[in-house]
């Protein structure tokens, strides 16, 4: 089977569907027409750009360039985590907690996968390194956002209970334990659900892509299983780290609840 290449006309036809949705949204006054248009434009420009960058990168394999792209991806993911929370941590902590957690989990899991499991030569071969890191970061970003959002919202809503427990001499970790557990669960549930329904409800994107590109289905499936395991571990690790560091930041060294460490809405 050879790869059916897409022409610009094929993409325009797909874009018409999005335009139709935008028109429908305008007609129904959903207030989403502008957002749909901007998001579609962003997708097109961003993906075309990364396509060109990857083309150049594949032609000149250099660890320095790969590291630079990885760094940019991490910074953008860190920024997204911060802006998607309703009431995140204030100041640099809002950016730092998510970014550090994603760095710890995504980079270590990707490195492990490249060096120990897949083993391309050299280990930083961009055809493997960039898509792998992208999938790890993308999923961990969602987990960390959900976990941190739940943590900060719940701490705000349950502040009188947390303080009542502090008044009884409980330490900070005891008073936030329930909220922390729930936040970690919320962050991890989507990836666990994705694992449970993979192949039954949805065909995961990476596997679909590989099959469309002509890989034998069984090879694509093996890669997909590997990726799902890595994503689950990575999201779990990142969420646990972010919620743990974030929950500590809600208290000061005297173990007082410090909601002034949260952003004002």
């Amino acid at each position, binding site marked *: 089977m050879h790869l059916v290449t897409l022409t610009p006309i094929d993409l325009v036809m797909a874009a018409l569907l999005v335009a139709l949705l935008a028109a429908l949204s305008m007609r129904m006054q959903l207030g989403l027409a502008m957002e749909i248009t901007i998001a579609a434009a962003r997708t097109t420009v961003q993906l075309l750009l990364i396509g060109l960058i990857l083309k150049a990168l594949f032609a000149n394999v250099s660890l320095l360039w790969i590291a630079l792209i990885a760094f940019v991806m991490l910074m953008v993911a860190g920024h997204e985590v911060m802006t998607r929370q309703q009431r995140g941590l204030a100041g640099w902590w809002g950016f730092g907690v998510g970014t550090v957690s994603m760095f710890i989990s995504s980079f270590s899991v990707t490195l492990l996968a490249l060096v120990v499991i897949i083993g391309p030569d050299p280990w930083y071969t961009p055809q493997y390194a960039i898509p792998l890191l992208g999938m790890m970061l993308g999923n961990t970003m969602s987990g960390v956002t959900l976990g941190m959002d739940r943590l900060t919202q719940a701490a705000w809503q*349950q502040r*009188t*209970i947390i*303080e*009542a*427990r*502090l*008044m*009884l*001499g*409980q*330490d*900070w970790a005891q008073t936030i334990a*329930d909220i922390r557990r729930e936040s970690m669960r919320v962050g991890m549930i989507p990836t666990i659900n994705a694992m449970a329904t993979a192949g039954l409800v949805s065909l995961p994107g990476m596997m679909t892509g590989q099959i469309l590109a002509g890989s034998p289905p069984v090879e694509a499936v093996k890669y997909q299983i590997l990726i799902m395991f890595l994503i689950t571990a990575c999201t779990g690790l990142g969420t646990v780290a972010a919620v743990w560091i974030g929950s500590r930041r809600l208290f*000061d060294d*005297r*173990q*007082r*609840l410090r909601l002034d460490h949260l952003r004002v809405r």
Partner: protein
Amino acid sequence: MHDECVCLEGPSGAGKTLLLRAIADLDLHQGRVYLDDIERNTISGSAWRRQVGLLPAESQWWRDTVGEHFEHTDHDLLDRLGFDNEVMTWQVSRLSSGERQRLALVRMLSLHPRVLLLDEPTASLDPDNVQRVEEVIKHYRNHQPAAVLWVSHDPQQIARVANRSLYINKGQLLPRPDSVCIS
């Protein structure tokens, strides 16, 4: 304030609750607080609050049943406040505000704090239970040395329980020389 019961009164918004919270180390402030000769900042926040218990005006409960909120049960205390042991299995959602308030007092006293910071502990109670609470705190102080800072709006109650009383207004603490002292 050495094992005394000091009452604190003042208009709403004068800073009574804020003062109790500052002593219990729940809010940032610049004052220094000592318990005996121990400066507060030399021990951890939780160790301090184990010894300096604050009973807020509105009690908080976070599990389904009463018993889940207690590290250990003091049957004698429960009895003195009109509860039997069954109360530990009660659903928190079915408690009246007066029951919550009295149980919150038991919960705090069963941890044996050295200082009691009481924010209107009898505000939602009927006269019988007001008397019970006053007796329980008196009994507690008779059996172990404890200093009490008691926010109250009731002059008769202040006369009954206080060794001395203070008046707070706009953040300023003033002694009340005219108060009746009965120990």
